[in-house]
């Protein structure tokens, strides 16, 4: 790599270092709590049940990652590289589940497949298999996370230079072998990054494992806090989660072939000619229909059913506009702040690769598998003690979102920067432009789609975020997520359906923005 070994400017290194140091606050808090507990911490660590929790958690992560890849990669290939009928519609439909909070997904799956749920009522049978437990948790988490893999795989497939595949085909290699030996390896880094985001989400999620009654580490952490008020074991288990994050990061690094993705030859990349599906188009449409039906139509349908039931039971329908404005404002702020914070780290990683960049980038993921409750309490600890003017302000809430969702912003910038060859920047420098002017004139426009994608992912996640929002929001600052929570607390599903549907409707246009932007980029490249 031409740029390897260049020393980064001091200001950039310091900025990136400061950002990562702030991201590590929750870890510092956990270490303080574990140190408080003294020898007890070790007892928790060596307890037999801790091992069982680790096994359960690893099984859950593995199951969801595999399911997400199986759902996302074929769908992404069908909508980007074939003449599938209605592929633009399927592409949008496949990303939409990203706007459904995982706890809502779990509620909806249970409302449909659960005992005496809608399905059982429709079939008129006495018993259906119990949908809770491992498989229920895998299904609900796959629903809310596979779009990460889908989005990244779709972008990689679209930007893939068809020259390689065509060369292989020209040498007489069969279409299937080209897919297996050329196409899939080429998108492997993107799929690996998507899988990492999935894994981190699964590690941190409490809503689903709680509703599906699956004993994972996160559920155990909540039990420690909620029924025992004991912070030492909770902190130890949370550090075990950080350990699992480290393992996931190693896996991702291995799967990512750190090669060049940008073209070095003259000329621009073309778009690939779509594969003609022929008779296979109907099974392909059926597949997309299945994915959309299960992961989008079903949850939305259950919500609409609850809404209808509420109306027919004479529940007052109040549209929570204020809460919606709060959600939108806080999430937009979070998107801006997080992407801005991720820029120095992303630039460092891509333009000044070296031990410092690698360490900072990997450290920025460290707290990401922590449950929202743990992150919230750690910020309560630091803010109430050492920064009381910001405590319980919108600023601290946005900061919490940035800590939780930093990797999403980083991954967006990552894919953007990876596609811009440093040579383009070097050319600008060679023409006498300063580094800042180069960044503004060359790099920023080129990574804009990546930054927008990252911002959109942060925005959507912040819209859905619940555990940290409950604790850190300013008093009276209700959001759509807290509305949903408040209603489900007392079992008022018909009341929860309104904010849930509003959350989905308000989030969807943001996805459309991402689609439109990346579509335009691809067209201008072709």
């Amino acid at each position, binding site marked *: 790599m031409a740029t390897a070994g260049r020393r980064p400017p001091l200001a950039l290194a310091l900025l990136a270092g400061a950002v990562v140091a702030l991201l590590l606050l929750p870890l510092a808090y956990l270490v303080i709590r574990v140190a408080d507990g003294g020898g007890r911490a070790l007892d928790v660590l060596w307890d037999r049940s801790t091992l069982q929790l680790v096994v359960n958690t690893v099984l859950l992560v593995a199951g969801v990652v595999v399911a997400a890849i199986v759902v996302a990669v074929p769908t992404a290939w069908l909508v980007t590289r074939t003449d599938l009928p209605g592929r633009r519609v399927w592409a949008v439909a496949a990303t939409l589940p990203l706007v459904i909070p995982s706890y809502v997904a779990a509620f909806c799956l249970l409302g449909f497949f659960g*005992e005496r749920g809608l399905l059982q009522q429709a079939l008129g049978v006495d018993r259906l298999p119990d949908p809770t437990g491992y498989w229920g948790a895998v299904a609900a988490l796959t629903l809310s996370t596979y779009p990460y893999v889908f989005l990244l795989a779709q972008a990689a497939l679209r930007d893939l230079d068809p020259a390689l595949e065509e060369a292989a085909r020209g040498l007489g290699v069969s279409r299937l072998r080209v897919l297996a030996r050329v196409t899939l390896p080429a998108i492997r880094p993107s799929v690996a990054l998507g899988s990492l985001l999935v894994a981190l989400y699964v590690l941190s999620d409490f809503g689903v494992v709680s509703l599906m009654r699956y004993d994972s580490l996160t559920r*155990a952490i909540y039990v420690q*806090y909620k029924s*025992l*008020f004991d912070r030492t074991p909770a902190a130890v288990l949370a550090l075990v989660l950080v350990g699992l994050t480290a393992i996931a990061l190693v896996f991702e690094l291995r799967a990512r072939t750190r090669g060049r993705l940008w073209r070095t030859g003259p000329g621009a990349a073309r778009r690939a000619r779509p594969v003609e599906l022929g008779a296979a188009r109907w099974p392909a449409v059926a597949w997309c229909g299945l994915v959309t039906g299960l992961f989008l139509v079903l949850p939305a349908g259950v919500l609409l059913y609850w809404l209808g039931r509420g109306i027919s039971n004479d529940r007052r329908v109040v549209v929570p506009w204020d809460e919606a404005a709060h959600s939108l404002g806080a999430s937009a702020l979070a998107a801006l702040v997080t992407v801005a914070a991720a820029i120095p780290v992303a630039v460092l990683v891509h333009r000044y690769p070296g031990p410092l960049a690698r360490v900072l980038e990997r450290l920025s993921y460290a707290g990401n598998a922590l449950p929202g409750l743990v992150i919230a309490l750690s910020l309560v600890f630091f803010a109430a003690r050492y920064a009381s003017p910001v405590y319980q302000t919108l600023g601290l809430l946005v900061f919490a979102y940035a800590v939780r969702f930093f990797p999403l912003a980083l991954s967006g910038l990552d894919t953007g920067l990876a596609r811009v060859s440093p040579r383009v920047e070097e050319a600008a420098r060679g023409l006498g432009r300063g580094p800042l002017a180069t960044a503004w004139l060359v790099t920023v426009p080129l990574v804009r789609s990546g930054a927008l994608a990252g911002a959109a992912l942060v925005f959507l996640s912040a819209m859905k975020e619940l555990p940290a929002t409950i604790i850190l929001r300013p008093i*009276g600052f209700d959001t759509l997520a807290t509305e949903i929570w408040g*209603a489900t607390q*007392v079992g008022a599903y018909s009341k929860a359906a309104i904010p849930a549907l509003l959350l989905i409707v308000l989030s969807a246009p943001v996805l459309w923005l991402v689609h439109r932007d990346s579509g335009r980029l691809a067209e201008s490249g072709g």
Partner: protein
Amino acid sequence: MRTIAVAAAVVGALALAGCGGGGSGSDGPLTVYSGREEELVAPLFEKFTDATGIDVEVRYGDSAELAATIAEEGSNSPADVFFAQDPGSLGAVDAQLEALPSETLDRVSARFRDAEGRWVGTSGRTRVLVYNTGQLSQDELPASVLQLTEPAWKNRVGIAPTNASFQAFVTAMRLSLGDEKTEAWLEGMKANDAKTYEKNTPIVEAVASGEIDVGLVNHYYLSLVKEEQPDAPIANHLFEAGDPGSLVSVAGAGVLSSSDQTEDAERFVEFLLSEEAQQFYVDEAEENEYPLVAGIDPPAGLVPLDEIHGPDVELTAFGAELSSTVELLRKTGWLS
């Protein structure tokens, strides 16, 4: 770029608007951390402001999470009052609560308040067996919670082992019958394949849908589920006198010693025990709870509190006993 600039401007304005409400000055509104759901208690706060002119800001959350928040905030807590769902959450932070005036404490029977007067019960709830009236008639119901381990109840009972209210009931059983009998009961429930739920509401829903026939819950979830499903075939059953299954527990409130508005905070707790607030539980509250102050009759259809003879145990002891209870739940495989 232009869209980003517009978004930034909108967001900046929102941020400025939202950042105002930070610290708590002594003449600012009273800050209450409420583990009780907004759906249920919001009218109480309005009534307090109407009666006293004191503004209240309420942070709603889960009782235990709010207790953890108060513990992490330490002496810098912005909270003046902690209004919690259960004695356990109040007990977890009792070191940060100050003793309440005796006139306030004395309005409630000693069994419904902290022995050292740091928190006081404000409304009561009993543990009951909720049952499906389509599946079971009244005479088929067990007299004691201990009978639920009999083979006849295999696969038919729902419990919530991670929930504070179930754990309080197990503590009551330990304190009244001893650890050995409790352990045997928990093992018997395991052998009987009792189904687990995260909390009370889903148990009542499962009973209503026929997924299970009976469930161990607090009495007032019945009316909450009926609100959503008016025709649900469900009813509550009380166990016999002295049975640990008919424990009476409370939601309660305490004043934080770090509060700089102690006087207003104490007025708020006093208000919760006033005739007006207690009558609220009878007349208006969706959740059908028991008033605790003497002389106010419970809502229609509820067995009066003084006719319910729960186990002979002290609620104050529950906080300290919780870790042994959880240990026992672990040992018997109900918690990991």
